[in-house]
């Protein structure tokens, strides 16, 4: 197993809710990320899945130090990134880059592609000497499959898929070790999604990158990930190797999520069991006591309202394929995706 390159422990991000203008009073908080543990290994892809509002995008912003956590640690090369500042923080940021979801709003419409992809060099001038930059940008455009001759064009002259390639080129500019991609293909058409996924997989092999791949689409996450973490309302509820999560899920939320994914095969209609959850995700400003999934869970009992289930390998399931981390008092294996023949 490859060494851990990024370790996240007990990560919290709470946003205060205030009332009053002159005399601001804190009346509560939105617990966007509420105790997240993650491990990213060198050269691997860690997929993080969850529905909107589960805190996955906030987690991404914390990982690349765009925001400061309320509590917890992010360890990179033996150092806690959350305690760094100034030059030391800048050096870390160079190695952990981000690709954003929306290629329509994450590129400045007034800048040329050359300026966008080359901007990281303005912030980290040591990465490439001034005379080199233009050439480096052309190289980067070539690497992501864009025509280097288009260096002087503006973002609106490109399609969605091409814009996402520009975003990826910018992420690669400083030769980072880690790329955090927040829903990188969800704004793209099906036929173009595959092109971008293939590109990301190729770049990973070529440059030995480690990815944190955040998405709500479970089939894409499965395709690209080595390990998967499922998030619900600010916490990881289950994590493991991709086959453990997809073929042997033990947390009821993961099972419901998997069973709800439409499968592009009408023959699978009859074969699979569907778990339809009732209700909506609670607000992160009013998180239920105990297990936060209990309000929608069909297995919930009294203990679920009282005790917070911890993310650990359940005693009963140790050793088997279902023996991976799951934060449920009543974790048990249940196959929901029919095995592919």
């Amino acid at each position, binding site marked *: 197993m490859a060494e851990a390159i990024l370790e996240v422990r007990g990560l919290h991000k709470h946003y205060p809710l205030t009332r009053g203008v002159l005399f601001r009073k804190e009346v509560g908080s939105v617990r966007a990320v509420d105790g997240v543990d993650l491990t990213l290994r060198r050269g691997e892809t860690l997929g993080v899945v969850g529905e*909107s509002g589960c805190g996955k995008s906030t987690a991404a912003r914390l990982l690349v130090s765009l925001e400061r956590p309320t509590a917890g640690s992010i360890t990179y090369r033996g150092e806690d990134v959350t305690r760094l500042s100034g030059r030391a923080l800048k050096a870390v940021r160079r190695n952990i880059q981000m690709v954003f979801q929306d290629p329509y709003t994450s590129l400045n419409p007034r800048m040329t592609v050359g300026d966008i992809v080359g901007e990281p060099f303005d912030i980290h001038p040591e990465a490439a000497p001034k005379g080199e930059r233009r050439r480096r940008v052309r190289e980067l455009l070539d690497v992501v499959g864009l025509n280097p001759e288009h260096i002087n064009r503006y973002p609106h002259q490109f399609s969605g898929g*091409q814009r996402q390639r520009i975003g990826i080129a910018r992420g690669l500019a400083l030769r980072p070790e880690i790329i955090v991609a927040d829903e990188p293909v969800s704004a793209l*058409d*099906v*036929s173009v999604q595959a092109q971008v996924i293939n590109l990301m997989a190729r770049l990973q092999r070529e440059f030995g990158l480690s990815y944190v791949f955040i998405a709500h689409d479970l089939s894409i996450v499965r395709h690209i990930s080595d390990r998967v973490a499922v998030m619900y309302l600010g916490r990881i509820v289950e994590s493991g190797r991709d086959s453990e999560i997809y073929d042997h899920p033990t947390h009821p939320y993961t099972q419901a*999520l998997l069973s709800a994914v*439409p499968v*592009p*095969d009408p023959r699978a209609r009859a074969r699979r069991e569907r778990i*339809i959850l009732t209700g909506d995700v609670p607000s992160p400003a009013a998180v239920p006591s105990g297990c936060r999934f209990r309000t929608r869970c069909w297995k919930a009992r009294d203990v679920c309202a009282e005790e917070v289930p911890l993310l650990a390998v359940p005693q009963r399931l140790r050793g088997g394929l279902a023996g991976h981390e799951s934060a449920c008092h009543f974790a048990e294996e249940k196959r929901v995706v029919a095995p592919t023949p």
Partner: protein
Amino acid sequence: MLLDVRDLHVEFRTRDGVARAVNGVSFGVDAGETLAVLGESGSGKSVTAQAVMGILDTPPGRVTGGEVLFQGRDLLKLKEEERRRVRGAGMAMVFQDALSSLNPVLTVGDQLGEMFTVHRGMSRKDARAKAVELMDQVRIPAARERVRQYPHQFSGGMRQRVMIAMAIALEPALIIADEPTTALDVTVQAQVMDLLAELRREYRMGLVLITHDLGVVADVADRIAVMYAGRVVESAPVDDIYKAPAHPYTRGLLDSVPRLDLKGRELHAIRGLPPSLTDVPRGCAFHPRCPMARDVCRTDVPAPHEVSATRAAACHFWKECLNG
């Protein structure tokens, strides 16, 4: 046949010239049947729905040809006044974005009740009672209390239920749903799709489902019409198409979906990009991206070939495609 669209043409006048958004589209839906119109952005699927519904923005849009036969009558020949009566009572639409389709300053009850005061001439009190009944029917909990709330007080899934309630209010024979679950989370998506399927069975409605999601289609549709650059390139019963597509574009779409047994390998991407509608390639619009393209594809627009009694494909080489 409940709805029979024949050779529909829609154009948009834009600064860059005339965009042929819909270019000879034909399809049909029976009562109690679900037809999925599948296509990527810019394929003309939403414009087709708007033209059938009669809510196309004119100008810039304009229906330039074809027929829309609904229960035997050509809707395109009706006066606006008559068409309005068909809308709502005969056919209704569910939109993608429930938040912007609902009026933010009216309560949900008022908006649901309006269907009955306007179309059925009911009193406000009776309409309110009907609104509560409808909300129960689409399984919105605590309907009696929530009928007085505003759209922003509902979650995304609940808002979409309100939209569905509004669509079924007058028990129409046909519902057109334009990407009804695209803005929703997976678990909520499943709830809403199930509700639509159940209501369709209960009322024996026809359902036209406009979508880009191959998974949703496989889950609920009886038949599929695949659209590309303003044309239907393939139409068939859902099982046939997933078993063996007869058009290279359909094949490409199916192959580009990540599958469990292909994990770790390259996804089959369709090369290139969908064309701009002001500049659709000559011949078959798909030929620049097609792995099977030959000379004839660059010059001749392929007519829909009959693959079987229930199936058609607009490809010169559909037989080769069908045989893999």
